[in-house]
């Protein structure tokens, strides 16, 4: 995939959503090495955004921190990430990824089906008929010492693991 190739509308929306999640979720302070450390969004697996994510976070901040995007090949590379986007390409290894960050203050986001209910993820992105919606597993997020903005919950479907 080249930079010149146009990115679909849904992908752009997902990139903006990633940024907004970083802005509406509060991390514990020990999640950052320094007071001015960047907030790191890690993309695990095949990059579906092309250049869209970089464009979306460019010039933006979350909780006053600059935002950087990292592309990860393996689960072992996820250290230092605050938001972990698990690409649909990793649908077979998703449990491995979520368990790797379980209990750590890392917000996990993925469009993979059943991510928030069966795979131990926190936020699942749904793109249906051109309209984006979100499912959030509050318990998982709370267990990871993350605080979700109440307003976020208002437009999301709150789900639980079975």
């Amino acid at each position, binding site marked *: 995939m080249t930079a010149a190739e146009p990115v679909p509308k849904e992908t752009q929306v997902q990139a903006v959503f990633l940024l907004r999640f970083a802005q509406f979720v509060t991390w514990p302070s020990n999640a950052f090495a320094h007071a001015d450390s960047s907030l790191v969004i890690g993309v695990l697996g095949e990059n579906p955004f092309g250049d869209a994510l970089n464009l979306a976070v460019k010039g933006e901040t979350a909780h006053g921190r600059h935002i950087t995007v990292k592309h990860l090949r393996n689960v072992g590379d996820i250290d230092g990430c605050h938001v972990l986007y698990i690409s649909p390409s990793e649908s077979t290894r998703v449990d491995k990824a979520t368990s790797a960050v379980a209990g750590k203050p890392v917000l996990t986001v993925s469009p993979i089906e059943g991510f928030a209910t069966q795979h131990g993820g926190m936020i699942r992105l749904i793109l249906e008929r051109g309209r984006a919606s979100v499912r959030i597993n509050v318990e998982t997020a709370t267990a990871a010492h993350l605080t979700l903005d109440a307003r976020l919950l208002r*437009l999301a479907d709150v789900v639980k693991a079975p």
Partner: protein
Amino acid sequence: MKQILASKQQTSIRGRLLSIMLFTSAVVLAATSIAFVVYEVANFRAQVLQHLRTLAAVIADNSAVPLSFNNQATAQEILLALKSEPTITAAILYDADGKLFASYPPGLDRANLPRPMESKGHRFLRDALWVFQPVYQEGKPIGTLYLRSSLAEQYHRLSQYALIALVILVVSFGAAAFLSSVLQKRISEPVLTLTRTALQVAEREDYSLRAPKVTTDEVGVLTDAFNRMLAQTQEHQARLGEQARLLDLSFDAIFVLDAERKVIYWNRGAVEMYGYSASEALGRNIDDLLKTVFPDDRQKIFAHLNRDGRWFGELRQNRKDGTQLVAISRWALDRDAAGKPAAVLETNNDITDRKRTEDELSKAQAELREHAQNLEATVQERTARLRETIGELEAFSYSISHDMRAPLRAMTAYAKALGEDFGEQVGADGKAYLDQIISASTRMDQLITDVLHYSRVTRSPKLLESVDLQKLVAEIVAQFPQLQEPAATVTIEGPLPPVLGDRASLGQCVSNLLTNGAKFVAPGIKPVIRVHAGKASNQPITVENRQPGSAGQNMVRIWFEDNGIGIAHQDLTRIFGIFERVHPREIFEGTRIGLAIVRKAVERMGGSVGVESDPGKGSRFWLELQVAEQKQ
């Protein structure tokens, strides 16, 4: 207009206090109400704005997520929650691109909506308030919220406030008016009490009144001061009254004039003198009142008064009944502190009667002087006529006497011839008758001679020369045998000084005195006569007829002392008159003219004659004559 002003000025302190308090209350209440309303309006606007902003902030905050996640349905839901705020009439949410994202109420007219703005702000319209609230995400605007609030309800509330304020205003003003009218008495009553007393004092001029003291504030102090002043005035008045009473005792008219000569004091003396009572005279111009006529030009008199501070003179003035009087008027000028004439004290004395008496007296004196002059003229005239008559009489008697001597001599001669030639024929008796005729005619001749002497003495011109008296007496003694021894003894004692006189007259005098001395002696006694000079005496002894001119001149007294029968005291003055005799003719011969001749002659020579005598002890005649200057 003037009356309105006057009545405004005369408004009582009560009214003024009331109006001040009411005006103050009204101003305070109005200011308070206006401040209240203004504050309410401002407060209300601020409240509305604050409320709306808070609301806008909350909604904007809530709208951040729907905008962030592009969720119009949720945004619409959020706006719909504004139902609970009935004053919000519209809400609009724009996204970051300025497109309408959500709106309230449903079915809002999309026309005439405000344009999206970048910053916070608000805009008050006539009946609404717009608030613009940007929606931020991480410090970046992601949209704008507009809220519109209706102000109608707030205005309604405000008008209710205004109504309440008005009611409070009216009620407060009423309360203030009531309180003022009650409370002003605390101030005005003492003042009014004081004023009433002051008016009573002024009307009745009764300085014994005192103002009751009601308070202890300044009015109380004023009352005390006023009472003290009244006491002083009363005392002063009493003293003045006493002075006025004393001035009233004066018979003089005493009055005081101000600078315009108007009467400001008028005593009882003035009332009695002019007939005007004090109330009639006070305030009147004195010169008009009394129609004063000044003795000199008025300007001069006043200039004199101004210069010297006093003036006096006679004034002619009219009484009230129109009669005129003359007054001696004394003026004293009183000056004020600046030295300008302030008042004149006049003391007038009615001298009309005295003046009339003086006039009458001077008239009488003038008449008297005229009479005296007339009298003198009459006397002179009569004297001249008398002298003329006397002269005529003297001339007549002289000529008669002279002419009578010729027939008398004829009678004597023919009687003697008859006796000699026809003595035997007439017999002894006839001879005796003839002797009687001769004797009588001789005596008559002697009488005529003496009368002629007297006449000559009185008529002869007065020609005084120095006469050697010593020699004259000796010559006379030599002429008369009856003065010589043995008939009599005449001695001249000491030198007799030369005197001024007429030799013939003086000889007559001396011979008369010597022959008298030799004549009036008792029978059988030899007459002894002493002649000597003595000091002239100022003391008249019996008769003193000094001429005025002889007084003080060098005089000498010649004494002729005899041992004759003397003269009774009652006769001492008579003997020098013509034809006076004190002794019967039967005893002593004489023509009774001798001493009269002496007196007349001596007086014509500027001398005098006199006598001292006691009956039976002789007489001491004296002549006083002027001493002639001795020529060496």
